[in-house]
């Protein structure tokens, strides 16, 4: 790496990151989500106390990037593993990082019940409307009419069902302290996403229940789009189907000032 003079340095690796070059595709917003988490952990001085739980999906190697303890869960089971960790180490910060196949398909049981139990966990949920890692099959979040390798003619809701809106669904559960949806498609929304991630970790740090931030994310590779057009796709097609918003902010969470 070339080193820059400090006065020219405008962008640096957050302390929460290791020096691992990214394995994500160009234009993929998984990396943006990672960076926001690392920045929040650094700002909250949580790095030594944090244990992350990686999913099965493109983020399976998330543990390579974060400078915290990490475990790697079976597909969909991250909330159960995180429950096990948090119950024996209640003073640690435990978060899962999960894709939409992981969380909303195979891991639906685990996520719903972790939320219902009000586990003091933080979940970062990457909704990219497909199974990225396995080559772009239909996910529960795939938009109606959207072509994937397993819905080649476009998702037909008559035979392949309707998209699942996780943030809305989990927000109905009493164990949830904070549950919102944000998007990673432009700088303004990225800033808002970071704020939400901060709120989610604050919720956990104060023992105020389950917290989840759903992030609308890109998958240029499997969507067959350029990075720029996939950002547009998020704005024009995903946001109408998955409205951004605060689906639940518990009364105690609402008083948190950051």
């Amino acid at each position: 790496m070339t080193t820059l003079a400090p006065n020219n340095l405008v962008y640096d690796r957050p302390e929460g990151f290791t020096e691992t070059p990214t394995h994500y595709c160009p234009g993929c917003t998984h990396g943006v989500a990672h960076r926001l988490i690392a920045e929040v952990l650094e700002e909250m001085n949580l790095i030594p106390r944090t244990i992350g739980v990686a999913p099965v999906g493109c983020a399976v190697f998330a543990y390579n990037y974060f400078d915290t303890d990490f475990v790697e869960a079976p597909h969909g089971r991250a909330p159960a593993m995180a429950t096990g960790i948090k119950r024996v180490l209640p003073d640690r910060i435990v978060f899962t990082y999960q894709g939409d196949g992981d969380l909303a398909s195979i891991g639906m049981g685990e996520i719903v019940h972790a939320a219902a139990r009000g586990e003091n966990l933080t979940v970062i949920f990457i909704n990219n409307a497909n199974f990225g890692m396995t080559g772009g099959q239909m996910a529960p979040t795939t938009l109606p009419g959207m072509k994937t390798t397993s819905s080649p003619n476009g998702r037909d809701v008559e035979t392949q069902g309707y998209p699942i809106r996780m943030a809305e669904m989990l927000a109905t559960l009493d164990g949830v302290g904070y549950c919102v949806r944000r998007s990673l498609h432009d700088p303004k929304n990225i800033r808002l996403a970071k704020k939400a991630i901060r709120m989610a970790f604050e919720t956990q740090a104060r023992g105020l229940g389950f917290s989840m931030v759903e992030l609308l994310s890109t998958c240029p590779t499997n969507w067959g789009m350029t990075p720029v057009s996939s950002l547009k796709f998020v704005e024009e097609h995903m946001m109408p189907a998955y409205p951004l918003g605060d689906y639940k902010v518990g009364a105690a969470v609402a008083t948190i000032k950051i």
Partner: protein
Amino acid sequence: MSKELWKGNEAIAEAAVRAGLQAYFGYPITPQTEILEYLSRRMPELGRAFVQAESELGAINMVYGAACTGSRVMSSSSSPGVSLMMEGLSYIAGTEVPAVLVNVMRGGPGLGNIAPAQSDYNQAVHGGGHGDYPRIVLAPASVQEAIDLMGLSFDLAEKYRMICMVILDGSVGQMMEPAEMPEMKPIVDRKFEWATNGAIDRERRILSSIYINPPAEEVANFRLGKRWQEVQANEVRYKEYFLDDAEFVIVGFGTAGRVALSAVRTARSEGIKVGLLRPITVSPYPYEVIDQLAGRVSGFLVTEMNMGQMYDDVRLAVRGRVPVEFYGRTGGVVPFPDEILGEIHRIAAGHWSREADPRVSWQTRMADVISEK
């Protein structure tokens, strides 16, 4: 400490507590539910973790998470639930973290019934989850032995960074027997150098079962293989009865071994020189002692509460040198000592089966015995 009357499942739960259990995660299923119910009271009372999970999948992955922190953790279930846990067991094995799982086996396959059976032997000992992985399996035959093996199971799991399963059947789980509990052990932080419990004052750690590079996975599998050789060399446990002058030997584990012992005692009182070998570790299996016995006895009778699963392990050790007969009851039916005594009489009279697989003539003989009533 003096003996008290304990129900098997509750004794297992209390023995685990006294061994320093820090967390229990489970899901109700007969005939093991008393373990979960007992711990739902006992663990919170001691300030320890208890969660009734949403499913056995949830439970085993909670176990997996807690195991990664280096805590003493267990789950318990019965056959259909244990099947659901196989994914988690494979990951736990691949990550090389210690965990204890109790299977109070019931009649199967499928939903089967809730009566005592031993038909998950192959799943526990030979199969189960995917991938090359060894695991320790202990098989108690009484409430006292179950208590003693619970303490041992945690020690073995941690020593070898391996799953330790305790398999029993509903009759041991539900039976009341006088037994002695060990003293309460304090919870100790074992400071495992692999535990992911927060990188406070140390380098961060990662626990995963991924070896994306095949040669690295091969190295990992050989490491597990080497560790398994150590287990095989040091941890084989069994009980022998009347073997010194035995002319033929019964082999049975758990309840089947216990029932066989009654039959052997009666046969001895009749002057028949029969002995009993009851494996306590069914994995690692006591191949060596059977190998030695095969050099001097005229044959074996394997008795199980299944269609003949451990039977294959006995045959492996005997290597065709002498006949190995089989007698089993299955589907939740427990054999009476008289049934095994009948087999002893047949063999003592010199009627060994002649075919390559004596389970064939056993099934033929059973035609008169098995009925839907």
